[in-house]
């Protein structure tokens, strides 16, 4: 069937089986391999994407659920030359190790900061509990979110 949706700000019209997993559609059909798959059962958060701004697991979503939605994958967040403040904080604070959880972690963080613009460390930990990381012990990810939150607040404060 024909599915129409916005992908990283660009209107898309694609032909796909309605029951194709979104993670496969992104990675295999559209070549967007920044979205990772690590469990396939909605436990780890590596495949997180934003659907109308909210964090969703693309391994549990079917193509038909994309219809008329606005999707953001990691490729649509920032470029290497112009990182999003969350990405910048991840780099600066050392929140990246093997990096396989990182795209999902960045997108989940963006959703978290949208809901809680000035989160406590406890709120950050709670908000990211659905995203597993096996390398960092999470501490530097929490540091990064704190830094990103204050950076974003500063930006908002500017006239």
């Amino acid at each position: 069937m024909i599915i129409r949706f916005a992908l990283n700000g660009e209107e898309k019209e694609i032909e796909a089986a309605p029951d194709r997993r979104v993670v496969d559609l992104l990675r295999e059909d559209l070549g967007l391999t920044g979205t990772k798959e690590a469990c396939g059962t909605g436990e780890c958060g590596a495949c997180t994407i934003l659907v109308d701004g909210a964090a969703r697991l693309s391994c549990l979503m079917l193509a038909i659920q994309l219809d008329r939605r606005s999707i953001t994958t990691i490729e649509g967040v920032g470029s290497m030359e112009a990182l999003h403040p969350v990405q910048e904080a991840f780099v600066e604070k050392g929140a990246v190790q093997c990096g396989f959880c990182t795209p999902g972690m960045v997108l989940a963080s963006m959703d978290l900061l949208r809901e809680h613009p000035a989160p406590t460390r406890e709120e950050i930990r709670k908000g990211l509990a659905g995203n597993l990381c096996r390398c960092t012990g999470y501490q530097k990810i929490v540091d990064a979110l704190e830094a990103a939150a204050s950076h974003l607040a500063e930006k908002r404060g500017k006239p």
Partner: protein
Amino acid sequence: MDAMHDDPYLTKVRGWDGPAGGAPEVGTSFPRADAWSKVTGAEKYAADYYGQDLIWAGAKRAGVPHARVKAVHVEEARRMPGVAAVLTHKDVKGTNRQGVVRKDQPVLVDDKVRHCGDAVALVLAEDRETLKRALEQVAPDLEPLPGVFDPEDALRPDAPLLHEDHADGNLLFKADLEAGEGVKGFSACDVEVEHDFQTPWQEHAYLETEVGWARVEEDGTLVIVASTQTPFRDRSEAADALGLDIERVRVVAPFPGGAFGGKDGITVQTLLGLAALHAGGRPVKMWWDREESFAAGTKRHPARLHYRLGATKDGILKALQVYLLLDTGPYDHLGGVVMTLALEHAGGPYRIPNTSLSARCAYTNNPIGGAFRAFGVAQAAGAMEQMMDLLARRLAMDPIEIRLRNVLRKGDRTPIGVSLQHSIGMEECLSALKRHPLYLEREKWKAGAGPFKRRGAGAAAVMLGIGYGPVVPDVANAKVRLTRKGRIRVYSGVVDMGQGNAATCFQIAGSILSQTPDTLELVLPDTERTLPSGSAAASRTTYTFGNALIGACQALKQRILEKAADLLMAASAEEMVMEPGMVRHPVSGRDVPLARLAAFMAEPERTVTHRFRAPTAPDGIPVSEEVRIHGLGHTVFSYAAHLACVEVDELTGEVDVRRYLSVSDCGRVINPQAYEQQIQGSVAQGLGYAVMEDFKVRDGQVETRDLSTYILPTAMDVPDVDVVAVQTHETTGPFGLKGVGEIGTSGPVPAIANAVADAVGVRLSRWPLTDERVLEAMQGMEALISGKDEHRRYDIR
């Protein structure tokens, strides 16, 4: 020469994606060069290789733990539309065996199935859906054999044999060591404590499961891109197993999405190679799903440990007797090496003059035991450091004080008898722990526990040997080139699975050659382009490869300075100074850009290699050559003291690790951010091992098959870890450093178990300390205290 291998699809020269900045300084935090590509999703992992006309490969797993293979019926599957090939052991033209030490693991089983995860057939299909259906159609005809699921049962004379050709039956390997007077040392002891421990499997649970991609090139080269820690060893293993000339095999190793030891050795590589040989030049991809990864991948070896520790009434250790039994599952993999390392570290970082240490490693039909961060050490330290607290309790001594009285100092002999001549910061680690606010305020913190909560604090002291040990050469070969464009390119021979050595390469090259990061380049391990440098394991990558890289960078610098001196007609190279992008001659005020200098040099002149071999223990210890080959003993060690503060829920038994301190001696810290990453991450893995990661196997069948039943620590479970560095200077290390990759892993189990004992008065004989176990133990203790329990089932503290 390089150009012909510059297929950007396979491997690329990586530059610096961040802001230019100044030349990186050793000793200051420096972001990893791969942070930008990882945070934007641009980094290409082995999992991200696809390509035109891709074929999917998958293995049919046996599903039974022990059986004789009568036949493997593949006809049905072969006939299915969309199936390109179905292969069995008959299609394997080489030895069909793989393994690091003893090559006892078939690529595709021939005579026997030895565990549920064995591969019996390999299917190639046009898409994943067809692959899945075709795998269901493969019908192995298996005659069940009685299985062995307990390492003690495995060593009984009547046990069914795993490998009929192995002279020692199900005993893979054993070692017995005695130092001083051995068990006679107990006669000089005033007190003795004795305890048994049982440790679980631990699953690596890297987010990127085992994955790779392979293709036979037009010139006949088999290219394997794999998520691996060991590209050079993989290459020779795959060539032997598949019957190929090693020259025909090329292994490319992108950044793995986590590895932790689980990708130290073959996972998908040979199966992928075999598939590619039958794919008519089309690319082939194999990607294990989580369930397959749990069933077929390696785990931390479960161990049984019997400890007997004796001391004087002043708490001076006099004698130690240990018996270790490891379950390696059906294959050696690294079982013998893990066992040997456990034996070497069994006595912890202490002077114990009389020791009697024995270890056995048994074959069973359980999942495969393998390398896992701090292998062997995590099991041994988990037991030994609980023994130290039991002893302290018996003597009514402070747990830190008793450790301080016995810690190893320079010149002392380790519990296996190696005399220590390198940097030792164990005492400083414990002293720094004692001075830390988390320690000083612990009693006050404990008193603040809420209703139905009890708090406790516990410590542990650990050490970890760096590198391979005395026989297997711990060698790295670095290659550095001044490119035609005047940039510095490092060819890394060791895999960076997240520990950050790619960043360290930039830091070392940039600081020695005075170059800013934007003029540095990196080539990741690739058997065609970089030089063999051993595995990314044993806390050795920066220690060994870093030393090689320093040598290469210094030699390249000298060459550049000499060439510049000639070009600018300076009196000597000593008058020349390297600066970002150029060489300057301060005497004349002239300079020459590196790009211009490079134009006057042919490629061989612009390329420098340097080899480094790590030092080994100076004095021989009386063990067989075979035990030495398995890595005993080491000479350079990292050390650490850990403090865990836990809160136990009296109603549920839940252990909540609330505060954590790690003080480590890993020599000089060259990148504080990377150092903290290693410690915090390894503590989190140790915490999971201590309280929640419960890998369940029943009769050889894995019962925890996904991440909803095998519970990993989340951001809610790991507290902020206070990371302190005691920076000794290790003269043999690059810039004075020692390995930091593993030392943090073995502290959490004993520190947390000691804290739980402090909080609620129970000490369990096995970990993880799950809610159920802790609750049951607390109830058992209550029954014991009230006289209702006739048998002494639980030790009190």
